[in-house]
C-alpha cells in the first residue's frame, strides 16, 4: 500500500457527470447522504435533461449532480467543482467549461472510444492531446475494473457496466475519507429483493475504494471535518420533500384532513409522490385528469372542510388561474404550490427560474388579491408550507407558494423542528346562525358576515344544520352572499377583499449588517447565492446590508422604510426584474436590478462580481 498524505479542506465541490443512464443522481444522492451522516454542512444541485433517455452518449443526455460540503455553514451548491467525475466524453464536453484550472478530473477512460468521442462531437481524443493540461487528470478504467471484480460473481459485462457508478462512489468516498459501512448497508437494503444485484454493487463500491487505496495515482486524500452548526438534530432534505412534510404538519396542526389535487408536472411531481405515500396521516391524494381538475377538486375538498392543496409548476398555474379566482371570490382556504421552472410556455422543465412572481400576484381576471410566500432554501420550504396553510385557513383565501427548481431538487441539512413549536392552526367551523336582531337578520346565516379583525368570512361546511347557503363565482352581496349586481356593493366587495389581504400582519423585514448604504434584497432561492456573494464582499472589506423577503404579498409593513434607508437597493432575481418592478411601483423608490435567466442559479462569485460596482463607491477602503 502506498503511503498517502492527508490534507484538510474547509470545503469541497464535487460534480458527478455522465449519461442519463449512468446513475449519476443516485451516486450524488448517496455521496450527499455520506456527507450528511458525517456532519458536514452541504448543499446540492442536481441537473438533468428534460428527456427521460436522450440518445446514449450524446450531449443532450448528460446528467449531473453537484455537491458542496464543508466544515462550516455554506449557502450554495458551489460555483465550480474542485473535482469533476466524468463517465463519458459527452459528460466531459458538457462540464469542462465549469472546471477551474488546477481542479481534479477523474475520467472513466473506457468510454473514450472513437465512436463515443464522435457522438460527443470530439474530432480527436482530448485525453491524448494537450487540452486537459490545466487539470490533474486521473484516467481510470472504471468499467473494466468493475467488470473484472464482478466476473468471479458470474456477473456479465453488461450488468457489471451498470455498477460502475458505485465504483466511482467508492473511489470518491476513499478520496474524501468518508465512512463506508452506511453505504454498503444502504445498497443491501435498496436491493434487498435482488441480493445478487446488491452484492454486485457492494463489490463495485469496494473495488473503487480499494483502487484509490492501492494505486499510486492518488497521492493525497482529503478530510472535511464536520460543520459546527447551531445546536440541534439535523437531517438532509430536498425542497420538495420538506414542502410535502410541511403540508402534512399543517394538516396535523389544524386537525383537518389534507386533500391534494394534482396533475403530474416537472419539477413538482415529487410532492405528489411523497404525499401519496403518507396516507397514514389522513392525506388524500387525487391525481386529476388535468391541472384545472386538480385545483377544482382541492376547492371542492376545502368547501367540504378539508385543507385543499394543489401543486404544480408555471404552466399549471396558467391553467388554474380561473379556479384560483373562484377561490378568491368564494373565500375558501386553498394552498397553491408553484414550483417554478424556466418559461414561458413549456420552457425549460428541468431548469430553475423565478419568473412567475407577477403571475402569482396578478395572473387572474379582475382584482383577485391573494397572499404570496416563497421559501428561501430547501429546508425553509417546510416552514413556508406551514405558514402558507396558516394564512389560507386564518383568512379563508387561496395562498400561492412560490418554490423553484433549485429548491425543489436541491438539498441541505435541516435543523429539525419539534411539533410543539409549530403554530397552532386550529380552525373553528361555523355551527350556528350569525345574523343579528339589529339588522333584522336574527336567526339567519350570513355566509359573508366578516370577522372584524381578520375580515375572514365564516366557514360553514355542508352537513351543518341550519346553515345551508349558496356560494359561487358571481359577485356576492355583502353579508348575505346572495348574487348582487349592485354597483355600490361591487365597489365595496372588491375593496374589502383587497383590504383583507392587505391587512394580513406579516413579520418585519430583517436586515443583516444594516450599517451600510447599499442593501441587497432578494426573495426565494437566490438567498444562498446572495448570502455567499455578500460574504465575499464583506471579506474583501466592503459594507453591504442584506435582507430577504419571505412574504411577497402583502409585503412586511417596514419594507418601504427599509428601502428608503439605503442609498442604493439592489435586487438580484432569476427573471427580468419582477420584484424590482413591484417595489418601484408600490413604493416609488429607485431599485437596481441584477437579472439572470439562463435556467441556472446565480453563482456566488458571479453575483459578488455583479454586486461589486454597487459597493465599490466611496465607503470602500482603498
Amino acid at each position, binding site marked *: 500500500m502506498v503511503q498517502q498524505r492527508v490534507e484538510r479542506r474547509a470545503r469541497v465541490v464535487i460534480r458527478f457527470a455522465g449519461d442519463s443512464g449512468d446513475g449519476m443522481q443516485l451516486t450524488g444522492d448517496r455521496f450527499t447522504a455520506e456527507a450528511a451522516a458525517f456532519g458536514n454542512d452541504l448543499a446540492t444541485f442536481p441537473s438533468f435533461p428534460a428527456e427521460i433517455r436522450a440518445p446514449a452518449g450524446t450531449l443532450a443526455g448528460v446528467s449531473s449532480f453537484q455537491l458542496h460540503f464543508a466544515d462550516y455553514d455554506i449557502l450554495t451548491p458551489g460555483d465550480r467543482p474542485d473535482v469533476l467525475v466524468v463517465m463519458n466524453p459527452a459528460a466531459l464536453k458538457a462540464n469542462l467549461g465549469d472546471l477551474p484550472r488546477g481542479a481534479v478530473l477523474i475520467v472513466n477512460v473506457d468510454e473514450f472510444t472513437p465512436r463515443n468521442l464522435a457522438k460527443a462531437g470530439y474530432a480527436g481524443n482530448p485525453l491524448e492531446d494537450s487540452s486537459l493540461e490545466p487539470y490533474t487528470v486521473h484516467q481510470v478504467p472504471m468499467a473494466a475494473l468493475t467488470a473484472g471484480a464482478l466476473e468471479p460473481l458470474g456477473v456479465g459485462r453488461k450488468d457489471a457496466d451498470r455498477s460502475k457508478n458505485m465504483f466511482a462512489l467508492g473511489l470518491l468516498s476513499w478520496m474524501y475519507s468518508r465512512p463506508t459501512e452506511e453505504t454498503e448497508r444502504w445498497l443491501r437494503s435498496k436491493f434487498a429483493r435482488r441480493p445478487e444485484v446488491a452484492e454486485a454493487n457492494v463489490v463495485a463500491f469496494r473495488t473503487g475504494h480499494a483502487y484509490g487505496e492501492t494505486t499510486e495515482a492518488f497521492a493525497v486524500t482529503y478530510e472535511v471535518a464536520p460543520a459546527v452548526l447551531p445546536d440541534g438534530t439535523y437531517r438532509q432534505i430536498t425542497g420538495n420533500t420538506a414542502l410535502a412534510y410541511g403540508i402534512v*404538519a399543517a394538516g396535523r396542526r389544524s386537525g383537518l384532513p389534507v*386533500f391534494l389535487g394534482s396533475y403530474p408536472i416537472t419539477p413538482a411531481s415529487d410532492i405528489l409522490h411523497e404525499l401519496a405515500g403518507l396516507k397514514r396521516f389522513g392525506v*388524500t391524494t387525487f391525481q386529476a385528469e388535468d391541472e384545472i381538475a386538480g385545483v*377544482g377538486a382541492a376547492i371542492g375538498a376545502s368547501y367540504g372542510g378539508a385543507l385543499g392543496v394543489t401543486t404544480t409548476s408555471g404552466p399549471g398555474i396558467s391553467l388554474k388561474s380561473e379556479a384560483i379566482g373562484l377561490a378568491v371570490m368564494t373565500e375558501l382556504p386553498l394552498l397553491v404550490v408553484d414550483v417554478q421552472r424556466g418559461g414561458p410556455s413549456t420552457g425549460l422543465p428541468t431548469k430553475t427560474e423565478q419568473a412567475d412572481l407577477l403571475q402569482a400576484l396578478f395572473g387572474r381576471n379582475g382584482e383577485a388579491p391573494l397572499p404570496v410566500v416563497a421559501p428561501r432554501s430547501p429546508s425553509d420550504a417546510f416552514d413556508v408550507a406551514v405558514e402558507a396553510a396558516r394564512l389560507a385557513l386564518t383568512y379563508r383565501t387561496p395562498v400561492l407558494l412560490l418554490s423553484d427548481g433549485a429548491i425543489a431538487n436541491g438539498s441541505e441539512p435541516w435543523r*429539525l423542528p419539534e411539533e410543539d413549536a409549530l403554530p397552532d392552526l386550529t380552525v373553528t367551523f361555523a355551527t350556528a346562525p350569525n345574523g343579528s336582531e339589529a339588522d333584522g337578520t336574527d336567526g339567519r346565516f350570513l355566509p359573508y358576515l366578516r370577522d372584524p379583525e381578520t375580515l375572514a368570512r365564516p366557514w360553514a361546511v355542508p*352537513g351543518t344544520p341550519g346553515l345551508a347557503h349558496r356560494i359561487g363565482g358571481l359577485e356576492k352581496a355583502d353579508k348575505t352572499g346572495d348574487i348582487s349586481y349592485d354597483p355600490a356593493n361591487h365597489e365595496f366587495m372588491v375593496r374589502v377583499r383587497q383590504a383583507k389581504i392587505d391587512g394580513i400582519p406579516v413579520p418585519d423585514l430583517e436586515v443583516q449588517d444594516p450599517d451600510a448604504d447599499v442593501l441587497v434584497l432578494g426573495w426565494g432561492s437566490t438567498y444562498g447565492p446572495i448570502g455567499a456573494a455578500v460574504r465575499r464582499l464583506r471579506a474583501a472589506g466592503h459594507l453591504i446590508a442584506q435582507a430577504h423577503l419571505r412574504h411577497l404579498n402583502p409585503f412586511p409593513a417596514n419594507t418601504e422604510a427599509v428601502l428608503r434607508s439605503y442609498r442604493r437597493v439592489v435586487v438580484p432575481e432569476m427573471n427580468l426584474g419582477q420584484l424590482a418592478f413591484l417595489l418601484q411601483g408600490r413604493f416609488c423608490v429607485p431599485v437596481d436590478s441584477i437579472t439572470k435567466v439562463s435556467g441556472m442559479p446565480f453563482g456566488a462569485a458571479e453575483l459578488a462580481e455583479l454586486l461589486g460596482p454597487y459597493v465599490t463607491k466611496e465607503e470602500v477602503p482603498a
Partner: protein
Amino acid sequence: MSAIDLGLPTIGGLDLIPAADGPQKAKDFTSDQEVRWCPGCGDYAVLAAVRSFLPTLALRRENTVFVSGIGCSSRFPYYLDTYGFHSIHGRAPAIATGLAVSRPDLSVFVVTGDGDALSIGGNHLIHALRRNVNLTILLFNNRIYGLTKGQYSPTSEVGKVTKSTPKGSVDAPFNPVSLALGADATFVGRAMDSDRKGLTTVLEAAARHRGASLVEIYQDCPIFNDGSFDVLRKPDKSESRVITVRHGEPITFGTEGRWAVVRRGFGLGVAPTAEVAPADVVVHDATDHELAFALSRLSDQGLDHAVFGVLRQVSRPTYDDLAREQVRTAVDAGGADLRALVHGTDTWTVHDGTVTAAVR
C-alpha cells in the same frame, strides 16, 4: 400492478348519508331566491320535479349539495335550500369530485348543460364517469347556448343556423348518452323536462345509484331554440319516436305497442310489432353495456327515435369509496408519527460544537 380486492360491501348511493328527522316537503327545499329563467323555460319544470323528488330521498337537507358550472341551468343551486356551489364553466364535476371524496356523508348533485358539460368541461365529465365518483349529474340538453344568447352547442344538429353559424353549423354533434356509455358510466338515463313522472323515476334511480350517474334531460329553450324537442312532445309526432325502456321488459312503444325494437346486425332497429315474432322483441337489460350503447344509437340528431328511461345501471366500485378505504386502512394501521417522519432514518446532532453522527 396487481388488483386489490378491497372487500367493499355493496352499498347504495345514499347509504352513508344521515336520514331526515321527519317528513319533508318540496317547500322545504325551496330557497328565498327569486327564480330568474325566461318564461316558458324548460328549467322550471325540472326545478319543480327536483324540489318534489328530493323529499322522497328522506335525507337531511343540509347533507345535500348541488354543484353547478356556468349556463342558464347552472343557476339551479340558488333556487334550492340546500348547500350549493355555483362554480366556473365546465368544472363542476371536478369540484364535486373533491367534495364527494372528502365527504361520504353528502349527497352530491352536479347540474350542468350541453355547453358546460360537453364543450368546455368535456374532460371533467368523462373522467368523473370513468372513475365512477359517487355523483348524480343532471345534464340539461337544450342544444343551444342560452346564457350567451344563442350560439350553437356541441349537441346542435348539423346545418343549424344560429348567431355564430349564419350559414348553418358544420359541426357534428355529440350524442351525450353514447359519450357517457363510452366513458363506462355505471348509470346512464334520459328524461324529458316536461315528463314529470319519467323524470322523477330516472332522477330517483340515479340518486340512489352508488357511483356516477348521468341523466340527460331534454330541455326546451323557448328563447333561442324554441320547440327543439316538439317532435317528441306532440302526440301525433312522438308516437313513433319516443321509446321508453324498463329493465326486464320487452321494448315496444307507440299506441298499443305498435312498434318494437329488434336486433339488426350488431345494432338495433325498429319494426312494426305485428311483423316481429314475440321472441325477437329485444328485452331491456340495464346491465348489458352493448345493448345500452345500441339503444343510444337509435337516437340521432333528427330525433327520429329517442330512448328514455334507465339505459344502463351496473355496480362497480366507486373512486371515492376506494380512495377513502386506502386512507382509512393506512390511518388504522397507525404509524402517523410526525416526529418520526420528519426525522427520517439518517440524523445527526450538534451539541456545544460537537457533532454526533447518524443514529439509526
